[in-house]
């Protein structure tokens, strides 16, 4: 049978696709949608909400620390705040924010109609939301986790922390871990299967490399912290002796399990952010990224090395010197791939023509903050020097430079960059520049002096400090800077809210960017692409002007796939079309599964096994409905092209 390759789809065809793909209206649609774009936006909004909450927690802490000896917060209140600030930012903001971007963008970047597992996608969001609620129930109960985000034992054992604070922490993290693992599996399988024909591995955007790497890492790292938390919960409620020394338990077992997870996790929090910059910075330099292959390799190698450095969080625990030396050396080596990426970005700017739009400012600022965070990390890699630096504000400076510098700044730049695509409107450019400078100055004012007070020996995780330390003046400056940074976030929020209704209308490609998401309307139709694109290079929309080869991608001629919700599956390396994948429609099953899991975890918190049992039975039944394979009309179909 001859294949039709039409140049574009007529309106009636588009209408048909719209009917197939559009989410049902009303509350049912809101609860049952599996559209990756809607789920992505939910992730972004929920993560932003937690960013603000975590920020408020920080501001309260900074008020207490503005001067030595203040008594505005009790020690217990402060300890709950600093613990929840860490938990919120690291678990409820940083990764979900990046998941939001990846969820929204991946199918559009990859030329697909959805992720590989749309229902799993919805589940990962609902579980994230419920786990966040589970963790935050602790505050109104006055029992928020108070052992730090790192939750060392024996301080968090029942004997020293008798309330339910730590039970909420342990069970909450296990619960949240389900969302992370499930979401990571979705990303991994999506990139292996759901790409446009021709999108071979060497044509993947770096954001895809970053999130893919982070997702593989999360699949392997999250079980460590889930196990650590489970064993702690057992110690606390079933009087086991995993970490309790009477009976042979080992406090350091917690630290090993936690940091085997914790170190790869922090790379998962930043590699997608680096990917955002690697993809979006070149747009504002009007040229492709320099050293694409090097940057992709550096992304993967950073993550692999990231599994071999965890003991650098334990340098002062008295481990044998040989072991410490190995991990110190590895911690130096891990700087090498990062350095490659920094040089690649600078080279891209150097050989390009910078455009001083708001996203560019955030990406350029990010490079500087990355380097500062990187060198403070380099200093802590030295085990001998770390024996002085660890547990001081020097580390607080380092971690905030890398986390805000390599996660928040790219995220905010990414918000300005992709806002037009998501909403169809441009953000206000002038307000954007004000946002950048306020955030940049506020951030450096808040966190740069922390290097100094750290070198002056101010310890971390303290609710107050003595005037004799001589750090009162700097602390006041830091607190002021924190408020300025918060003002910048407020400006961002104002810009987002205003621009949704008042922003200039954006066309498909307001930035003249090269990747596939800019080939569809803003916002994209529910089905993303009317026909599945065919890809010939890394920058499909720039091919004509770059003229590197004669091959051309096309978004106007490709597989139509309109017999129901469908997208194409491809081979792993070369992206040859392989199968027509049937995608699920709206369904309440993911929400119901998440509710069942919530019941299970609440039952465990209450140590009530009737409740746990009820939740388990419910979850199992819903999963049965979910996993039952659906029948398709045809086993094979001719590949109709539009």
């Amino acid at each position, binding site marked *: 049978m001859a294949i039709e390759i039409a140049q574009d789809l007529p309106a009636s065809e588009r209408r048909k696709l719209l009917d197939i793909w559009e989410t049902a209206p009303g509350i049912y649609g809101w609860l049952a949608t599996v559209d990756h774009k809607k789920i992505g936006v939910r992730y972004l909004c929920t993560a932003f909400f937690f960013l603000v909450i975590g920020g408020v927690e920080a501001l309260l802490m900074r008020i207490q620390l503005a001067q030595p000896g203040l008594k505005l917060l009790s020690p217990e209140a402060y300890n709950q705040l600093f613990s929840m600030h860490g938990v919120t930012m690291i678990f409820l903001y940083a990764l979900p924010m990046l998941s939001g971007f990846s969820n929204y963008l991946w199918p559009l970047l990859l030329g697909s109609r959805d992720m590989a597992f749309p229902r799993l996608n919805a589940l990962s969001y609902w579980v994230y939301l419920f786990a966040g609620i589970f963790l935050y129930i602790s505050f109104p109960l006055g029992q928020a986790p108070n052992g730090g985000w790192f939750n060392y034992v024996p301080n968090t054992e029942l004997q020293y922390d008798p309330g339910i604070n730590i039970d909420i922490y342990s069970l909450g993290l296990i619960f949240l871990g389900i969302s992370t693992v499930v979401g990571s599996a979705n990303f991994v399988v999506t990139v292996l299967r759901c790409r446009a024909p021709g999108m071979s591995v060497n044509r993947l955007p770096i954001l895809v490399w970053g999130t893919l790497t982070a997702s593989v890492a999360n699949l392997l790292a999250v079980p460590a912290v889930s196990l650590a938390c489970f064993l702690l919960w057992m110690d606390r409620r079933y009087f086991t002796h995993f970490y309790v020394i009477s009976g042979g338990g080992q406090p350091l077992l917690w630290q090993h399990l936690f940091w085997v997870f914790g170190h790869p996790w922090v790379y998962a929090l930043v590699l997608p952010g680096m990917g955002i910059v690697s993809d979006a910075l070149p747009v504002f330099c009007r040229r492709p990224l320099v050293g694409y292959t090097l940057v992709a390799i550096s992304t993967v190698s950073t993550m692999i090395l990231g599994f071999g450095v965890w003991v650098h969080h334990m340098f002062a625990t008295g481990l044998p010197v040989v072991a410490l030396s190995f991990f110190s050396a590895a911690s130096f080596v891990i700087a090498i791939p990062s350095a490659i990426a920094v040089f690649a970005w600078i080279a891209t700017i150097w050989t390009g023509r910078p455009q001083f739009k708001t996203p560019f400012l955030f990406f350029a600022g990010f490079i500087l903050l990355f*380097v500062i965070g990187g060198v403070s990390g380099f200093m802590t890699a030295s085990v001998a020097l770390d024996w002085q630096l660890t547990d001081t504000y020097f580390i607080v400076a380092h971690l905030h430079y890398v986390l805000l510098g390599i996660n928040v700044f790219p995220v905010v730049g990414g918000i300005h960059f992709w806002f037009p695509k998501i909403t169809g409107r441009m953000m206000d450019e002038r307000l954007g520049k004000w946002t950048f400078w306020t955030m940049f100055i506020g951030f450096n004012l808040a966190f740069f002096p922390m290097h100094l007070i750290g070198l002056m020996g101010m310890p971390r995780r303290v609710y107050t400090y003595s005037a004799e*330390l001589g750090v009162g003046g700097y602390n006041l400056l830091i607190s002021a800077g924190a408020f300025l940074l918060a003002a910048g976030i407020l400006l961002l929020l104002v810009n987002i809210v205003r621009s949704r209704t008042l922003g200039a209308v954006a066309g498909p490609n307001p930035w003249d960017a090269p990747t596939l998401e800019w080939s569809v309307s803003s916002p994209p139709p529910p089905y993303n692409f009317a026909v599945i694109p065919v890809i010939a290079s890394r920058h499909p929309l720039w091919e004509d002007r770059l003229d590197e080869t004669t091959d051309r991608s096309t978004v106007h001629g490709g597989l139509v796939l309109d017999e129901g919700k469908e997208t194409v599956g491809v081979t792993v390396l070369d992206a040859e079309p392989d199968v027509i994948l049937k995608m699920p429609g709206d369904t309440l099953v993911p929400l119901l599964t998440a509710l069942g899991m919530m019941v299970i975890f609440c039952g465990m918190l209450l140590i009530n096994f009737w409740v746990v049992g009820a939740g388990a039975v419910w979850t199992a039944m819903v999963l049965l409905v979910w996993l039952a394979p659906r029948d398709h009309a045809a086993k094979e179909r001719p590949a109709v092209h539009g």
Partner: protein
Amino acid sequence: MKRSAAGLFSLLMLSNCARAPLGYLEGEGPAARSIASLGWGLLGISVAVCLITGALLVFSIFRRRAQTDGLGRGDDRSSLRWIGVGLSVTTVLLLASAVWTLWTVRGLSDTSRAAEVNIDVTGQQWWWEVRYRSDTPSREFSTANDLVIPAGVPVQLNLRSRDVVHSFWVPKLAGKMDMIPGQTNRIRIEADRPGIYRGQCSEFCGVQHAQMAFFVIALAPADFQTWWNHQLEPARNDPKAIPQQTFIERCSGCHAIRGLPAGGILGPNLSHFGSRRTIAAGILPNDSGNLAHWLNDSQGVKPGSKMPELHLAANQVDALTAYLEGLK
């Protein structure tokens, strides 16, 4: 310009250090000095890297370019070569830093000079139990929170914990070492000369982690021997004295004083309390007014500490204060 910026930075650091009792960029003992020089070296490299990369970034943004429209495409070979240059420099710096680090670690692990004094320091929420060891058991004694050592010689500390993980840190003399229940970590400290060096718990250990400080007091070796002998002297045991009776009645459940029938081990040993520098683990300078304040309102000074509100009468507070301050 870069050099003056670096110089200004160093000046800023040094001037701060003089006023920073917990600062460690200037060591007052061999371990701390060795780490400090490593610290300055790595700090110097870090500052240089930031300044150079920052300059490259700024230059790359603002450098003059031919004004053209359209997209850049171009031969990236020279860029890749420069990336190679940057990578090589980075690798050399990292390698040198790693070698320097391992060299420093080797030096810090050197135990060729025998430790002259052996002290068990046990952290507990939220104070420091200190026991001086001796080959002659009768010459051993306990004290708390003040760590007196002889200057100019290595001192071995055996670090333990009675409850949660703490960390022993006296930055001017040495790096940190954790105190982990169930194991003994050893560290050597040495002060170049007599002086007072501030210390702080450096692992979050609960509600009063922030107020778990201590002081290391280094004495000339001869003075140290005198001090040791003095510590062995028991307090005068006068069962009829009211202050002593009050102490036995209200305090000895947790506290001990050498020479008295007071053997509480839950709280700090109060022998020779009058000669201690601070009260409540480095929180209040030790004088009558502060001691009275502590006895009246321990939970106000250190909320959550294990020292309960005693609800003593004013005359009891006065008696105890005078008594304890008299234990020199």
